[in-house]
């Protein structure tokens, strides 16, 4: 009996795959470009008040200006730095904790509702209490990000470990795996698909939480840039900010997180969505 699953004829680096990728990227950009064209058309023909909606040109100009004078880079840097720190701490604590809780089935099922409760609450709902505890600024915002990532990742890690069939763990024990080996060779890899899903979801919450928190709790960052532009009816800055936010998350999610999730889920032989 031959093997199931198709032959992987195309290697990831073959020219056909590359061309296919380029093609899908182009197809992706066409509707967006069309939207920009329509936007430009509507704003010009209907002579829309720039205080209500900016023209494409003004947004572009605002973009160029803010890159030149460094403000855009500063805001993006602040936002990305906060996300990086919060996410790293959230993962560093959440993954081990989730795995630890998941190892013993009785403990896993006991903590499951608890962790799930908090993962639902994660993110923005913590902003008021975070600003009260840490004051305005880096601490509160990073806490909200950490919180968003931590609970979701811990929950998913717990779930992931619980879903490893007991016989696989028994198999490892019978092959001589000690505690450390069990964690790094079995539990962590076994839970990885769930963990990656958790990271993706958690970072989604974290990103939204970041923007929200930056609107009310600090003096720099993309959310701040958006919110303060409102005071001066600088709609071109608002739209610029929205586009930047969309692009950053799109890049992060589509180019990094989604493929990661797909690869781990497929390799593990689980049916991906």
């Amino acid at each position, binding site marked *: 009996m031959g093997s199931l699953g198709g032959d992987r004829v195309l290697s990831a680096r073959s020219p056909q795959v590359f061309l296919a990728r380029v093609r899908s990227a182009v*197809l*992706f*950009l*066409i*509707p*967006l470009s*069309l*939207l920009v064209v329509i936007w430009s058309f509507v704003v010009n023909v209907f002579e829309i008040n720039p*205080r*209500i909606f900016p023209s494409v040109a003004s947004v572009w100009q605002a973009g160029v200006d803010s890159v030149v004078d460094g403000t855009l880079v500063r805001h993006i840097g602040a936002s990305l730095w906060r996300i990086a720190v919060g996410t790293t701490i959230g993962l560093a604590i959440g993954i081990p904790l989730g795995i630890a809780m998941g190892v013993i089935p009785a403990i896993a099922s*006991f*903590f*499951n*509702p*608890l962790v*799930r*409760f*908090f993962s*639902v*609450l994660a*993110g*923005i*709902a*913590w*902003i*008021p*209490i975070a*600003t*009260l*505890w840490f004051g305005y600024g880096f601490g509160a915002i990073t806490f909200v990000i950490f919180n968003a990532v931590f609970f979701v990742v811990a929950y998913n890690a717990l779930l992931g470990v619980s879903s490893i069939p007991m016989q696989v763990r028994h198999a490892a024990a019978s092959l001589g795996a000690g505690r450390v080996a069990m964690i790094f060779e079995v539990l962590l890899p076994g839970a990885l698909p769930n963990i990656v899903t958790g990271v993706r979801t958690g970072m989604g*919450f974290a*990103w*939204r939480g970041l*923007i*929200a928190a930056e*609107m*009310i709790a600090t003096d720099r960052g993309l*959310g701040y840039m*958006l*919110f303060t*532009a*409102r005071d001066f*009816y600088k*709609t071109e800055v*608002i*739209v610029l*900010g*929205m*586009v930047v*936010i*969309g*692009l950053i*998350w*799109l890049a992060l*999610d*589509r180019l990094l997180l989604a493929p990661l999730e797909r690869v781990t889920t497929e390799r593990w032989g689980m049916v991906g*969505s």
Partner: protein
Amino acid sequence: MAIITEEQASLWNKLQVAWVRLHQHWPNAAATLPFVPLVLAWWLTAMLEVFPRAFFPGPGEVILSLKSLIYKGILPEYLLDSITRLIVGASAGVAIAIPVGVLIGMNRHANRGLWPLLLFFQAVGDIAWLPILLVWFGFGLTTMTFVIVYTVLFPVVLNTVLGIRSINPDLLRAAHSLGASRARIIWEVVLPGALPNIMTGLRNGLGYGWRALIAAEIIVGTSGIGFLMFDARRAGSVVEIMLGMIVLGLLWYVVDAWILAPIERATGERWGMVTR
């Protein structure tokens, strides 16, 4: 090779039996059990004043605040406001999302054209729209409804598309050859076929919508649970913030576990379909 004494063993056994019986006869009570140590730990931390009382009040104070706010009518009113907004926004969102999902799922051109837009706007996120919404509509119901509709849209559309893609094409061919018109096929085959996934999308969408509502109320609101927390922050009152968060969490947990999840399971199981 006995590790424990006979008495300890039989006590442990009795506990196990009690645990099993509890889960069998009162599953809802059993679901609350894990929260007991949490509340106890909270109470202990607060009582020992591990953190200053002003920053970390205990369950007692939160309950007192609960009573007071109910008595003053504030909590019920805010709760009603929040829930109403959510229902209105979610309904509008779903009403838009399902047709869009059907369109994208069934029409390849719509798919090619709209999918990238969908992904981009999902990436922008509801929160980033707040400033421009505030410019257009000010601090009011329209802004908040828009945010909820926006947030609910994406999970429902995406899951609808997923559900439609997972329909066995033979079903569609069968309907076609039995003489069903396009509209009929959508109504009789596509929608029921995608229903389990749509329910999943609905469940997710409501979750996101709830979170978006709270976010909007925190940043923009004039009433509602989110506003309660925002206002309490301004007054420096942690107790009410905690109360707000607990009410939020509990409400969502209850609705999700006792209403949404069973519905989602029921549609999937009744049709004998695997939803995920």
